[in-house]
Structures are given as C-alpha cells and as structure tokens.
C-alpha cells in the first residue's frame, strides 16, 4: 500500500496514511501524532519493520494514522499482543499506544507484566485523566473529586501515580512528556526507541472535550518554567524561570525537597544530580507532587538489561545447538518404542 520509494529521504508525510484523522478538533492527540511522524522520519525508521499496536480509546486510534503496520486490538490488551508479535519476530520495532483507561484501568495487568518482563517495546501512554472515547467517565488517573457521568457526585478513589506505578512494576525505562512540546516529545520518542527493553512513556495529553486544561497548572505557558523540571542525565536538578530553583535531598529525613539557589545558603552543589541509572532517585522523582514540587519531565529512569525476546531466542538457539537435526520423525520415536511384526 505504502511503497516507500527512497528510504534515505523519508519525510513525516511518508508516515501518514490516507485515512482521515478523526479526533476532536483541538485534541492533544494531533500533536503527538505529528511528533511521532516527524521523529520516525528523522530516525529513518523502516515503515515495513515498524508495528503500532493499540487497545481501544481515542488514543488507540493512533495506528490507523501511521503508514506502518498497525493493529488496533481490544481494550487493555495491547501489551499482550505486542509481546506475541515481538516474540514471533524480534526484528520488528514494536510500539504500543495506550490511554489511561486502556493501559491503567482494564489493561493494568498487561502493562505491569510487560514492564516486568522487559520485552523490547515502546509503550506510549496518552494520559488525559479521562475516558475520552466512551464520553467522559473518570479514569484511574483522574483526581479525587472528578465529576463525570459515572461519578456525578465526584470520584472517590485515589488516582494512581503513573510513573510510580511503572517503576513499581519493574520498568527499566520511564519517561514523561507533554503533547504540545514537539521537541521534547521527539527526544523522548528517540530515547525510548533507543532503549533495549520495555520503554514506558507517559504523555500528558489534553482532552479538549471532557477534561480540558486539566494539566494547565504546569503546561500553560506562564507556569511551565516554574513547574516543569526538565531532566538531563548528569546535570543538577535545576528549574524555574530564573533557573534558581533546585531539588535536593531533605536533611534529617528521607525524600526530596525544592529549594531556591542562593537562599538559606543553598548552592548548586547541594542539588541532586540527575542519574538515569539510579532507580531510587527515579522513585522519588516520580512521586513529586505539584504544587510544592515541579513535575519531572524527560527520562526519569533508564537501566538497560537483557530483554525477554532476546533471552527467549537464546534459549531456542541453545536447544537447537544441543539437539542438532531434531526432526518430527525423531520426536515421535523418543522414549520407549516396540515393533509389532507381521
């Protein structure tokens, strides 16, 4: 269908299908799609080796718009399909697109096990803190008190911390970005793809219809600098319009705290230096809550480790090496046999 003529000169358009994009006008999903198409082109990702797998939700329509292979599956199960795909053909570059309902409500278990197993997938979760497709019910990431069709008096459960959950599941790569920050998003996609193992990316995505501006406190232009901590490996945790805010370890207790450089004797040296390999740090960064603390964006954690599909192939290769020439005839004759004569 999409015969790519010159793989050397791919453009974002080469990753766009001819299908009409059917999200609501103004939906944050558009920006993410655009960022993905652009990054794909920049990475020269071969479309024929790329598969987008999704569950069900507005976000999960994503594969229809990517001119790669795509599988729009059933609600919550995309990581399981993706695992089967990757195990069947480890050469494929497999992306999972999911939402906060798809991935964290019905699909929580599959997400958790994919992360634990470390299958080499990129799992991109569009978190809009709402069920978009089914018209606005609250989701596991909705804040307590969210009024929605199914919670007219306000929701009463605690939202899950997405990054904390992923780390708790054993994720080896956890990153965060925002729908509208094209450059940051692109970088995060690139890092996710580069990581061997399950890469988990949470994107704060605005649902203009059912949950408009729910991330406004840290995404609006004015607040951004003061409420976003853009992580860079090896760099101290500094943020703020004036680049004078930082994160350090609490004194006399366990935890992180936000401080102002130059106040109370705090210097840049007192700040925590970001270390993507430090899971403990990632746990603390993931738990930071606005408004006291900024939102940590970028790569919180990146710890490469053996990936599931590679280990599985190795076991198969070893078995083949150990029993060369294995064939069905031999298989059927394994163990005790006897001959009945004429």
């Amino acid at each position, binding site marked *: *269908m999409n015969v790519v003529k010159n793989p050397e000169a791919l453009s974002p358009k080469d990753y766009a299908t001819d*299908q009409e994009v059917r999200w609501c006008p103004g939906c944050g999903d558009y920006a993410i799609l655009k960022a993905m198409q652009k990054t794909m082109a920049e990475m020269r990702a071969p479309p*024929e080796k790329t*598969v987008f797998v999704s569950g069900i939700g507005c976000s999960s329509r994503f594969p229809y718009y990517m001119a790669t292979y795509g599988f*729009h599956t059933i609600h919550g199960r995309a990581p399981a*399909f993706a695992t*089967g*795909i990757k195990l069947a053909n480890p050469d494929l570059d497999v992306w999972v697109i999911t939402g906060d309902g798809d991935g964290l409500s019905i699909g929580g278990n599959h997400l958790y096990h994919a992360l634990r197993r470390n299958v080499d997938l990129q799992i991109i979760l569009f978190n809009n803190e709402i069920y978009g497709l089914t018209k606005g019910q609250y989701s596991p990431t909705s804040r307590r008190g969210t009024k929605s069709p199914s919670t007219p008096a306000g929701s009463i459960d605690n939202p899950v911390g997405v990054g904390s959950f992923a780390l708790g599941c054993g994720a080896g790569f956890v990153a965060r970005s925002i729908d509208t920050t094209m450059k940051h998003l692109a970088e995060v996609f690139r890092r996710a793809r580069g990581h061997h193992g399950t890469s988990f990316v949470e994107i704060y995505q605005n649902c203009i219809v059912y949950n408009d501006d729910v991330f406004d406190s840290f995404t609006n232009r004015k607040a951004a600098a003061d409420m976003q901590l853009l992580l860079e490996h090896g760099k101290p945790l500094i943020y703020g319009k004036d680049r004078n805010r930082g994160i350090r370890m609490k004194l006399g207790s366990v935890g992180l705290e936000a401080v102002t450089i130059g106040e109370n004797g705090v210097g840049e040296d007192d700040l925590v230096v970001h270390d993507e390999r430090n899971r403990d740090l990632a746990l603390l960064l993931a738990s930071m809550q606005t408004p006291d603390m900024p939102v940590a964006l970028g790569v919180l954690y990146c710890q490469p480790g053996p990936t599931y599909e590679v280990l599985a192939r190795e076991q198969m290769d070893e078995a083949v090496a150990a029993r060369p020439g*294995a064939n069905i005839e031999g298989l059927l004759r394994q163990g005790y046999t006897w001959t009945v004569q004429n």
Partner: protein
Amino acid sequence: MSSAALKEPPLPRQELESAVVRFAGDSGDGMQLTGSQFTQSAALAGNDLATFPDFPAEIRAPLGTTFGVSAFQINFGSGEIKTSGDALDMLVAMNPAALKVELNGLRAGGIVVVDQGSFTDRNLRKAGFDANPLNDGSLDKYRVIEIDISRLTMEAVAEFGLSKKDGLRCKNIWTLGLVYWMYERDRQPTVDWLKSKFAKRPDIADSNIAALNAGHAFAETAELPEGVTGFHVRPAEITPGLYRTVTGGHALAWGLVAGAKLAGLPLFLGSYPITPASPLLHILAGLKEYGVTTFQAEDEIAAVCSAIGASYAGSLGVTSSSGPGIALKGEAIGLAVGTELPLIVVNSQRAGPSTGLPTKTEQSDLFQAVYGRNADSPVVVLASRSPSDCFDVAIEAVRLATKYMTPVILLTDGYIANAAEPWRIPDFSAREEFPVRFRTDPEGFQPFARDEETLARVWAIPGTPGLEHRIGGIERDYDTGHISYDAANHQRMTDVRRAKIDGIAKDIPLQEVDQGRAEAALVVVGWGSTYGPINRAVSHLIGEGYDVAHVHLRHIWPLPDNLGELLKGFDRVLIPEMNTGQLSVVLRSQYLVDAEGLNKVSGQPFKISEIEQAIRDRLGG
C-alpha cells in the same frame, strides 16, 4: 486367608481375553511408575491396551489418607481395547486408604492384592476404617491376595544395606514382580530400565531388581490363595509397525509441532497453567529445538492475545487452557474472527461449572466452543477422540486455521490428556504438506482480499516491504479493509465470515459410519473421549446381533456435509455425552432429528456397560 498352598503342579493358567488392573497406593508409593512398567510389558506381549493415571486432587496429601491415593489403571487384552476398563479384574492396594477408595471399582470375584504389612491400626484409622477390612468379612465377595509385602520386600533387599525407608520404596517393584508372574510378563525390560534409571545408584537398582524377582518368585512358588491362578492373555491382532504408548498431552503437542512443520511456520504457544491443560505447555516448553516458542502469560487473556499477536507476525499462534480459562479468551477470539487470523485454541475440558472438579473429566464446553462468544463469530471446532487421535486432530486444526485464516477450537479433555494408548507411529514423511504462502507482492494488495474458493483473506505479515496496512476489531471494508461503518458492508462481511466457515464443510471428509449399518435401527452418535466406550459397546452388541451403529464426529463445526442425510437414515439417534446434552442441541437444531441424549455428568467417563445398557433399553433384549 493367608496362603498355605501345597506344592502341587502349578494350576494351568486361565485364558483371558482382557484384564483390567489398577495399581493404587499412597502418592509416594510409586504407582505411576509401576503402572507404566506394567504397560510396557503388556505392549511387549503384543496386547492392545489403554491406561489411565488417576492423580489425587491434592498436591501432596498427608501419608495414608484417602485423598492422597494415587492410582494407575490399565486395560489390556487380545481384542480391541480402547478404554481403560469398566470394572477392575485386579486391584493392587498398597495401603488401607487405597483399598478404601478403590474397592468399589473391583468387580465381584475380582482379585485384590493387599500389603498386609500396611494395615496397621494407625493406617486403618487414617483411611477411615472402623474395623480391619481384612478380617471383618467385607472382602468376602472378592478373591484376596493378602501378603506382607513390606516385610517380604525388606527381606528381599536386605543384602544391599539400604535404609529402611529406601528399602521399603522397593515395595512397588516387588508387587510388580508378583503381577508380572500372574500375567506371564517378561521381567527383563524392567530390569534394564531399573539399571539405566539408577545407573548412579547401583545399590538401588540391585535392590529393586531383587525385589522384582522376589515378588515374581513368590507368586511362582504358588503361595497364592485357593482359586487364584496365573493368567494368559494372548497377543492382539495388531497392525505391524513401530509402536509406542502415547498420552493425549504428548500426541497433541507433537501434532501441533508436526502441523506447524507441514505449514512451514514456527509455532508459538501462549498459555497460562491450569489443570488439566498444563501438560501441553510443559511439553511444548521442552521442544524449543523444533522452533517452538512458549510463553507463560500473566493470565489466559494475555495468553490468547499473545498468540494472536504471534499469528499476526507470521507464526502459528496457539493458546491452550481449560473451560474457565477459555471463558476468559472469548473476547479476544472474537478479534481473531474479525481480523481473520489463524489461531488454535485448545480446550482440555474438565468438570464444571466454575472451578468445579478440576481433576475430573467432562465434555461440557461444546456450547462454549460453538456458541460461546458475543456476536456472530463462527469458528471451526474439532474434537479428538482418544490420546493418539490428538495427533491427527492437531494437524487438521493447523491445516484449517492457516488455510482459512480462522480460529480453530480443539476440544480435548482431562481424560484424554492423561490417558495413554499404544500408537503405531505414523510415517510423517508421507504426510501432505500445506505450506502457507504469505502475501509479498505490493501490486494491488488489499489486506482483506479473499481467495475465491476458500474465502480466506491474504496473510501479509509485518516486515514485508510495501504491504504496510492496519487491521483491527472495528468492522472492515470488504474491499480495502479500512474501518467501515457502512450498513451494507457489515451485512456483507457478516455473511462472508459465515460463508467461509460453512464452506469448510466441503473441505473435510464426509462423515463415515464407524461401525454398523448405515441405516441401522439405532445410531449412537458421539464426539470426543466417549469414543472408546461407545466403540466397545456397539461392537459387543453388533456381535450379539443388535442392529446398532456408531458415528463419531471429529468436525463439530462446521459439520460434515452428509451428516444430516446420514442421520436421517437411522430410526433412532442416541447421543451419549458427558454433559447435559450439548451436541444434541447442535444436531437437533441443524437437522431436526429427534436425537436423544444419554448424559452423564459425574466427572467420570462412561462405562461400556452403561452405553450397552442404554442401547439394549432402546432396542430391547
């Protein structure tokens, strides 16, 4: 009742057509090993046979309790066998609990071998006996061989200096020696096996061999109670060839591997452990060198989804479970129906509903297989009738799944999975291959373009340049495969999905009559593991002159093209099922034949006699 036999010339051996022997003892008594050795000896003696191992439901019950009894049953003879036997001719009970649990399986006049030494007060109490059954007359209607096996075994192995515990562990082999004598079996293969098994512990090997010989000698020297003689069971007329015994679990696993080979595909199993389906996972996990990938998923849903994913990526996706686990797969199977991907779903049925009786057998998931999904979502349903039949059915499942791009549900059950029968190893090289041809040509490619004859869509897998496309669960346009909400298109797609499955009826063998006349007074229609008892019952009654026939279905959906006509030829239709009447519903609705059910839902297979009786009741006599 213990023996005081005179040293007279040994009584002549009694000729038997067949015999059913059951070895029963504590989980730790090695009954499964004993049973398989005996099976091997029967096979070598040229008997036809069938076996059934019967494990306790508990993992490891306390010693000596009734719920810790493990048993192994074998039916062998000079005629056709096909079931593990209605009633026991001989019961070997290694302890009181085994006697308690198994005795009512023994026919009146049958032989029971007991280890007197184990009938201590403590063991009797554990087994729930108020009085010692060896003394209170409760065994009067049986012939009892009461021997202090424990003591005799210890004597036999004394010279090898084993601990008491290790010495006593030879009890089962001592007993095997005794039973070998009774059925005139050759000890040598067991001797060889013991030597190789305990190659690193020659003392244990030697002790066991000594025990085997001692048990044999004990019987030979005629220390048997009055009226008990040795037996002679002639070899059966068996097609020449190379044989092995095979369980349903193994035959199924091998059949899937063989089918994948014939299709030219790697095999992927996504599964989640559940009784009695786990053996397939275990066996396939050990066959990596055949290009098999197994994946123990987090649950049954992930298992089936991973298998569908694997099929999507160009493997043969298989998933397996038992009823409750299959229930969880329904939604995903619907996606495979919609996206038209090959998928094999193996259901090792067990007794339900819900958790039910996990270790007991039942055939009650036929409704679930044929009708158990939301929406109109027809799939292929096959059923295997016996352990070895699993091999062929598995290959047929692969053939249909790949040729028609469809899920195939393969029904087997707990009985078949664990039972074993002799199997003439097929000549695999003679099997016809059915290689899958993936689409590779971008020219004019449409992901839902169909083969005119089979109506199967093309299979185009990721990694193929130029065929990038998207599929999913939303209704697809008949031509382009794009999402389509169009009413006429939905009708057309529904119709073609149905026609594709219906059309498979043309590609499967016409239904044959297994035994009896095509227009007999009564036909017994069966499916799955009732094959053995129906076959034997009908055979016996035809022998007695009854006008009865047997039809056994392998293809449950779609049904063979000629089945309706065939059934109308009989005066009466009787359908024995280990459920409350599920195939009955299917056949009645399809052909409006007034089929009558013979239903047994006790977690136990049918006895031959139960089916015979039902036939007699209907045909008189």
